[in-house]
């Protein structure tokens, strides 16, 4: 499929730029602008909370990263289920699932760390084996395991098949994490925004900054998934080319012995 020259192919200067496109650049700019606003507003403009004081400022990074981590794992789950259900699935689905899980794991790590710092200020401890914290840590470890399984050997199709099965099951943990504060007695506060009664009691600027955070992290998520799924695609091509070269060298070596 690939010639010897292709293996050493050096792309044109434009291609050396990597995996960026005009769309991804636009999304990147939107992410930078909205993220800057969230940091400035979250740290300086928004008022302190009546009960928590300035500690509430951690909310503007903690809550959006948690929501986007959920979103990332749902994207992984949907892409994986589609892979399993389609008769002739495209590897794009597998790469989107993998890229989304990578970003989701990072966002979940941010949620755990910022939550831990917030917990130290409000509860007096970094960690407690509370239902919400425990199920969140379990979700994080599950997707670290999912990424480890993706890294095992085999063809891209084998990788897609086995990781799709795991992702389809792992996504079921998300409702467990979200409703853990309702199902069990939890130290973690219940939902402030996604309340069943829809009654949100929050200052206007605080709410605006929180939703700006959701947009900022969503733009960041889209940018990262777009780029990382292209990286996964190129990595598959490079591995495939490497294998073909190795097989060809082996065949040449063998024909030399036969003579």
């Amino acid at each position: 499929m690939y010639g010897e020259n292709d293996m050493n192919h050096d792309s044109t200067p434009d291609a050396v730029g990597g995996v960026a496109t005009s769309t991804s650049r636009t999304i990147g700019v939107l992410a930078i602008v909205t993220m800057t606003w969230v940091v400035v507003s979250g740290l300086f403009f928004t008022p302190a909370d009546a009960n928590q004081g300035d500690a509430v400022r951690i909310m503007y990074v903690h809550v959006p990263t948690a929501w986007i981590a959920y979103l990332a794992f749902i994207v992984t789950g949907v892409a994986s289920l589609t892979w399993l259900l389609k008769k002739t699935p495209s590897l794009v689905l597998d790469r989107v699932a993998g890229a989304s899980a990578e970003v989701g794991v990072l966002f979940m790590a941010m949620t755990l760390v910022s939550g831990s710092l917030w917990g130290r200020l409000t509860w007096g401890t970094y960690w407690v084996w509370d239902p919400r914290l425990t199920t969140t840590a379990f979700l994080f470890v599950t997707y670290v395991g999912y990424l480890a399984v993706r890294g095992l050997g085999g063809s891209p199709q084998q990788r897609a098949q086995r990781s799709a099965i795991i992702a389809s099951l792992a996504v079921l943990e998300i409702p467990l994490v979200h409703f853990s504060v309702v199902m069990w007695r939890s130290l973690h506060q219940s939902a402030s925004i996604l309340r069943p009664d829809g009654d949100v009691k929050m200052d206007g600027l605080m709410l605006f900054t929180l939703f700006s955070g959701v947009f900022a992290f969503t733009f960041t998520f889209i940018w990262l998934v777009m780029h990382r799924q292209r990286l996964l695609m190129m990595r598959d091509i490079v591995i495939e080319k490497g294998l073909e070269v190795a097989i060809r060298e082996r065949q040449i070596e063998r024909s030399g012995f036969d003579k």
Partner: protein
Amino acid sequence: MSDAGFIVLSYVFTIGSILLLVVVTIRQGRLLSRQVADQDKPWI
């Protein structure tokens, strides 16, 4: 601002982690892009 250390640390960790992944992604993209022919990059 009270408890500024904890608050700033949470922002630095969050934004810093994202920046790190962005830098790694761009660098890996440039490295891999040199090894892959343009016709194999549907986004070009």
